[in-house]
């Protein structure tokens, strides 16, 4: 009201329909964004390489991608590495040291994505079997962390890896520093075998296993594998050794004067590492391991296992086998 003619006209303009004419371009809307641009030249940051990256470069690239933020990227890289290890690098030296590779791969055992974890297992299985034992000390903390993880899936996954490692390099596994005591401790906790010494109060805690039947049975199986490896086999005096000693007849203890065949032969002296506590001792001898087991774990294992044997089924069967293993080892002494 009272506004000028100019204002009225302006207001009217908003409501006028745009006139469309045949053969002419449609009038542009008021809010169109101009996408045209002018440039003297275009720069492409990534040039197409005439000669494709070498296998080695690709391998290293995928190794670096293992710490990527996206799950799928990690998974794909792991898959590439696994296939590459099996095909390209089978029996050949790796482009980087195994230790460096393990540094990258092992943390993925505890990854939140299940796909990544399964690929990790595959990659570990693809690694050269004869060499992986040298890095048992490096591997074991991750295995143990996986075994005691809050997530059941991760625990299950890690058991698979442990079972594989027990098959391939049992000797190194059980004689690594802390490899025997700490791992057994993990099994005990995992299975809920309580130490009767630190029984607190009169209240009874729930007996039996916390998990479902299948995973307990699996745990018992892997425990049996591991304990059998540590308690039963005597690696120090296996047949080969005795044979070679006999062949060099006039010389006794010939092996002790040879160059050591295993890596880090004086590791048990622990010259450069952190001071170790009682738990992370290196038990290289079978007798030592048996003694250790008898002193600290035999009682609770035996008691809990005999109870579990009565449950029958998968659990009972596995428990029975495990009990047989430890009984045979410890009773024989």
């Amino acid at each position: 009201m009272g506004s000028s003619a100019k204002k009225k006209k302006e207001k009217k303009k908003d409501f006028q329909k745009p006139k469309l004419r045949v053969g002419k371009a449609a009038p542009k809307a008021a809010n169109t964004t101009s996408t045209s641009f002018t440039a003297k030249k275009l720069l492409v940051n990534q040039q197409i390489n005439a000669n494709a990256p070498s296998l080695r470069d690709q391998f290293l690239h995928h190794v670096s991608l293992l710490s990527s933020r996206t799950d799928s990227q990690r998974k794909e890289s792991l898959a590439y590495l696994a296939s590459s290890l099996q095909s390209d690098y089978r029996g050949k030296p790796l482009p980087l040291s195994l230790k460096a590779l393990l540094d990258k791969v092992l943390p993925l055992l505890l990854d939140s994505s299940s796909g990544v974890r399964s690929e990790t297992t595959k990659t570990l299985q693809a690694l050269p079997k004869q060499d992986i034992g040298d890095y048992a000390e490096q591997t074991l903390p991750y295995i143990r962390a996986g075994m005691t993880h809050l997530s059941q899936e991760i625990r299950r996954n890690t058991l698979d890896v442990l079972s594989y490692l027990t098959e391939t390099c049992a000797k190194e596994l059980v004689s690594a520093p802390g490899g025997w005591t700490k791992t057994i401790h993990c099994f005990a906790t995992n299975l809920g075998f309580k130490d009767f010494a630190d029984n607190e109060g009169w209240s009874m805690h729930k007996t039996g296993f916390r998990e479902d039947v299948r995973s307990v049975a699996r745990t018992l199986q892997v425990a049996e594998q591991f304990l059998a490896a540590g308690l039963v086999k005597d690696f120090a005096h296996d047949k080969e050794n005795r044979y070679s000693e006999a062949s060099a007849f006039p010389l006794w203890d010939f092996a002790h004067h040879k160059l050591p065949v295993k890596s880090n032969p004086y590791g048990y002296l622990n010259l450069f590492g952190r001071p170790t506590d009682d738990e992370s001792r290196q038990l290289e001898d079978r007798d030592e391991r048996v003694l250790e087991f008898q002193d600290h774990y035999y009682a609770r294992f035996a008691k809990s296992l005999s109870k579990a044997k009565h449950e029958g089924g998968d659990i009972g069967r596995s428990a029975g086998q495990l009990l047989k293993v430890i009984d045979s080892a410890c009773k024989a002494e």
Partner: protein
Amino acid sequence: MPKRKLAALEKVDADLTNLQYKVKRDPASYRSEFLDQWLQYQNQREIFLANPTSTHDSSATSFKDLLEFIAHVSDCYKSETKDFPQHLIEILNAHHDSLEPELREKIVGSLVLLRKRDIIDSNTLLHCLFPILSSTSSKTLRALLLQKILSDLRNSNSKSTNHKLNRNVQTLLHNLVLADRTSPKALWAVKVTREMWKRQIWTDAKAVEIMKECALADNEKVVAGGVRFFLGGDREREEQEEDSESDEEIDMQRLRHQVGINKKSKKADRGLKKAAATVKRKEKKKGQPHPLNFSALHLLHNPQGFAEELFQKHLQAAKSRLNLEHKLQVLQLVSRLIGLHKLIIVPFYSYFLKFLKPKQPSVTTFLACLAQGTHSQVPPDELEKPIQTIANEFVSEAAAGEVAASGLNAIREICVRQPLAMNETLLHDLIMYRKSKDKGVMMASRGLLGLYRQMNPEMLKSRDRGRDGVLGLKTGELKQQRYGEEATGEIEGLDLLEKWKEEERRRRRIEKGLDPDISGQEDSEEDEEAAWNAWNVEEEDSDDSGGWINVESDDEINISDSDDDEASKPQSKKVKFDLPTTDDKENAFAKATSEVPSTTASTTTSKSKLATTRILTPADLAKLHELRTTTSISSQLPGSHAKHHQTAAAAARQTHSQRHIDDELTAETITGLAHLSAGKLTKEEKAALLAEHKKDRSEHKSKAERKKQRKVEQGKSTTNKEKARKKNFMMTLGKAKKKGKRSLVEHQKVLKMHSDRGKRGGKRGNY
């Protein structure tokens, strides 16, 4: 039912927060779950220690989360986690520089949490954090650590002062400062101590001792920090206190009303309870006695040694590396120490000589320091040279107005503190400047004149002495004090009290119909008894908030509290015991005052008597306080003639006590009214002023109008010109008419006067 879609969080059932919640509710049942996690923590720790720098964010539960979990529940399983704090401390000590920032923060946070849960004590925490604070290179970590350290110190002192901890930390800081005098690490000691001082948690001599050592360090930053503490720490503390006091007031009534009206909820209820608690706490705080806050400068041990060392180390030494700003700060501190504690450092005054030039940067601060470092115990010979230098360099016709004004002000400030430093000829010369056309110089010179009128009129020429000065000289009250002479101490306002008592007595006797001039023994006895009784009643009435502090060990008051009648008797007896000796003299004195108009001699003797012969009752003291305040207020009222009643000495005391001796003398005081003598503004300055005022130009106004508005806002009066312009037209008519009717002779006279004025250089004339 369709299969439920899994949310991202549920992908892995690794929910530590959930477990934490469960554990907290029922620690005993979740013990085995906790033990699993403890084992997991140990394993993760092993992994971590093998490679502390690597970060794997992708893992389902990171080391970080585990740390947090264990820290939160460790108070439920103390025996299992007894190594945990040690682990954290080890990790932090060994890897604090290479750790991932988030993890580092978490470790520090966990340690503080453990401290809050009382699993470790403050000592352990602070001994862990402090070395890292002073050694780490990460800025964020330092900020975090400092904050945590300060908050821990504050928390552990919140309920009651934790003397043991304070002592330990203070020793730690003290050692830090002393360990390496040149290292900047001592800066942390400065920061912590300063903050604690500000919050009034540390108010003891040990904290001051730390700062003293800092001020004597070799590192410039540390020195500056220490010196700044002494110069500004107390003011900071006061400001902090005011801030905390002026928090928003809670209106309980309103809150209660609101709760009554609004929807009732647990939250609102809780809020109300919280508010009530705060109000209660505040009330309680109000009732508490005011804490004794000694200034840092007063808490120093051996101020003489400290001042001397500061002076020698930072000022006198040729290789002192402090820049001018820091040097000035040190100088300010030294001069304040000298002035406050009346120290004698003889080379201090001659040190100034080379700086007393108008071209010297921030010379006003130097002048202020010189004046501040003067006190009545300084040998006048030492001051003569600096004063002479100031007079020669600053105060001359050739010098600019500001320069002369600040020189005069400086001389005045020195002479306030040590009047003997001035000699007569110089004083006469300086006083001549009171006729100067420059307003700043004139005011400064007048200040000097006024000072000597009060302090020692004898030094002035007789026509300059003024009325008070002459009177004072005649009565002998204004006598120059000799060097080293100290005035005898007395209770301020005691004469007023005596006068009031006498009046009261007379009034009562007139009421009784007795002769007011004769005093009886029973009279004053009654008086005394009444006074003590009045006190007892008062004591009964007063509660904690009433200003008196309830001192528990004072059993005398308690007795009088319990049974009034019995208790008052022995006390009145005690007074009686005193009375016979005093009464006669007093009566004699009362007669003397009524007969002879008061002579100064008799008043001085009576003053000492009242305080020495009689125990002042609390009521007396209260009255004394009241009288003191009323006189000080009435003397400051513009219309009152109280000033004329006061003696000149009292007036002098008042002018000097306007500024407390604890207050520092700043360069502003020395500059004084120099802005009055500033010349015209340059073009740039004008532009700057214009720009400054541009922003408050919301509506269009003429320049004159804006100026007028500004003047009104600043509370300034209008000029004569403006007044004339506003004058009613009818009122101006008469003068205009008269002007037209002037005779030629009259007109000639006016013109002559005008030309004369022009020659003289204005109304005031050129001097």
